[in-house]
């Protein structure tokens, strides 16, 4: 099929079917546009890069872009899920055929809510140290443990779970990956109150919850490998989202917001404030220039080391912006509440900066990754890498 034929086909299909749908509100729950998404899926536009047996059209990356662009031009959702749907991609790559037949169509239509059950109170940066256990029973597994930092757990139908299935091998080799049904006795979700006084995350307490055999993804005790592909999809989705956000509203005005604030505070002529304002704006602009350069290098096919620096750069920007906003306010920053929006902003941003500098890998872990994967520096010796997990010191 030629590019022109494809474009004509997708545009004709959209013209015949797309009538507009309600906006999406919750990124983890059931999708209010499920009916439309099912139509997109059945027409083969949701995952055009995928095999024909699995709702796809086996299109090349370039041709799939044509489909995505046509959907974007019409303002219609649902295309490009072969890049953006973390859950469906993970399931397609690793689930058993019988489970795939059930779950993949539901995931593509947004008919099931999903959440991530990875981190635990005792396994944050050291994710392979999880202690949630899955024990073999008739027809499946019984799971017991505690998960944390779970978004969307309240409305989730399934959680992508990593649990320990063998305690007598080193930590990376005794982990398995499951789709855990969330709506059952034995799965209790409690909202987690953050330092910002918001609750975006939950703790999930799992007590003897059941997961059927067919919900195991990848080989038994091969969960670490499945997790790596899931994390890679997650990073690429996050990267797409971040790029989308940056090319949107923020722009130069967003970059230079601190200038506006300093002017409003009547402190733009204070030489010390000017130094701080310049440095904070500079970091933001430099980060944007770095990202543009990285994208250009990737487009040319040369690998770019700059992408991995963005999160570390953003941590510093957010923390320093919080500090500077607070300095500009002075004692007003003692206050909170709707009558003091500038104080609310300064205080919220100062605390929420940790969302970036801790979440998704702390700055310290990020520096390890840059040092090891970008600069080729050797890893620290890991004393627990080769001994049975049962013998690893915890706590």
């Amino acid at each position, binding site marked *: 099929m030629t590019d022109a034929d494809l474009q004509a086909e997708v545009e004709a299909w959209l013209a015949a079917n797309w009538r507009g749908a309600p906006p999406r509100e919750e990124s983890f729950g059931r999708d209010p546009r499920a009916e439309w998404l099912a139509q997109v899926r059945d027409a083969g536009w949701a995952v055009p890069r995928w095999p024909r047996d699995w709702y796809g059209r086996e299109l090349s990356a370039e041709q799939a872009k044509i489909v995505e662009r046509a959907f974007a031009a019409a303002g219609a959702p649902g295309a490009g899920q072969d890049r953006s749907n973390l859950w469906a991609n993970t399931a397609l790559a690793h689930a058993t055929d019988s489970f795939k037949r059930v779950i993949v169509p539901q995931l593509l239509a947004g008919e099931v809510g999903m959440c991530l059950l990875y981190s635990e109170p005792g396994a944050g940066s050291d994710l392979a140290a999880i202690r949630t256990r899955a024990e073999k029973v008739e027809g499946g597994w019984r799971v017991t443990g505690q998960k944390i930092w779970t978004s969307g757990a309240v409305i989730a139908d399934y959680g992508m779970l990593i649990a320990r299935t063998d305690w007598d091998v080193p930590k990376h080799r005794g982990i398995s990956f499951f789709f855990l049904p969330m709506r059952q006795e034995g799965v209790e979700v409690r909202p987690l109150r953050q330092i910002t006084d918001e609750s975006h995350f939950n703790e999930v307490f799992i007590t003897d919850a059941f997961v059927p055999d067919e919900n195991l993804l990848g080989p038994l005790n091969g969960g670490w490998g499945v997790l790596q592909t899931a994390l890679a999809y997650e990073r690429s989705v996050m990267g797409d989202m971040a790029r989308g956000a940056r090319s949107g509203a923020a722009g130069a005005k967003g970059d*230079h917001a601190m*200038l*506006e604030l300093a*002017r409003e505070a009547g402190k*733009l002529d204070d*030489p010390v404030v*000017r*130094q701080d*304002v*310049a*440095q904070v*704006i*500079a970091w933001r*602009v*430099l*980060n944007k*220039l*770095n990202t*543009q*350069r990285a994208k250009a290098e990737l487009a040319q096919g040369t690998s770019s*080391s*700059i992408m991995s*620096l963005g999160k*570390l*750069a953003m941590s510093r920007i957010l923390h320093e912006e919080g500090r500077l906003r607070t300095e500009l306010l002075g004692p007003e920053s003692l206050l909170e509440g709707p009558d003091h929006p500038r104080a609310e902003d300064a205080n919220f941003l100062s605390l929420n900066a940790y969302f970036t500098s801790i979440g998704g890998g702390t700055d*310290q872990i*990020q*520096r*390890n990754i*840059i*040092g*090891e994967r*970008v*600069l*080729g*520096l*050797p*890893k*620290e*010796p890991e004393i627990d890498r080769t001994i049975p997990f049962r013998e690893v010191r915890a706590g």
Partner: protein
Amino acid sequence: MTDATMNQEERTALRDTVRRLFADQCTESDVRRIMESDSGHDPALWRSLAELGIAGLLVAAGTGGSQLSAVELKLVMEEAGAALAPVPLISTAMASVLLDGELAEALAAGRTIAAVALLGALDWTGGSNVRIEGGRAQGTARFVPDAGIADIFLLASDEGVHLVERASAGITPLPTFDRTRRMADVRFDGAATRIGDGAAARRARDIGLVALAGEQTGGARRIFDITVDYARERHQFGRAIGSFQAIKHMAADLLLEAESATSAARDAARQVAEGAVGKDAAVALAAFACADAFLRCAKDGIQMHGGIAFTWDHPAHLYLRRARSGVQLFGDSRVWRDRYVAALDAMQREMAA
């Protein structure tokens, strides 16, 4: 000035050519030899650069130049900065903006070397007191780069640009801490020919800043590479020191600085070449971002090496000296951060109006 620009392939070829030249003719021992010389200048290397069209990089094709833009200048300066090349590239780039005709031709051919003294509001040293009245220049310009080897002097201020012959200039070479970047105090007493206005002077200063930003980026990158290579190879406590997070985390932070400098220098070069509206802000940003990045990479690079880099024979201190001298050429980072805010402020006001 209409600048021909190169495509990506041609730029890569230019960079490779210059890189090879420096690898061949500007090794560390060459640099050290020139450091010990009276002039601090490498005439043989300068001849080779002139033959390649690098001395005349910005000079119009009609007067024997390569007629390229700030973008290519930055590219060449990255290589020169990495090699610590002891040649008057920055002065020559600035002079290219100010000269035409026979003088431009002599500049491009490498026959004439021009030193540029920034005066008035463009003078950051605060020590110059040159007055130009009735076609005569009188007074002293301080810390003039490449003055010792200059054949002509260009006095550039907001009031305009004047040319003074060497015969009317009394030169006192200075004992510079960075032996690869020589300077002199110059006492003028003689005829001064007006050759340009204040706008030309500011253009020359901007070109100087782009060149310096490129030099600093190249220097930062080279000392960073030297440091990370060493961290991979040097073993203590039975393991490569780069495996220790104390070292690894410093390296990650320096990579961010070096990459940011690369982006800042590139953006400033592009905006100056295009005469874009944001060029003042971009030049100011590059001025402090590249200076700070080079200084930090050079300083932390020595710390990460440990004792070996505290020795004269190790090249790390040559980069630190270069990083420290560059900061003093057009204004330090404090000055440029202040001007960055001023440029952004002016841009916002213009957009609002």
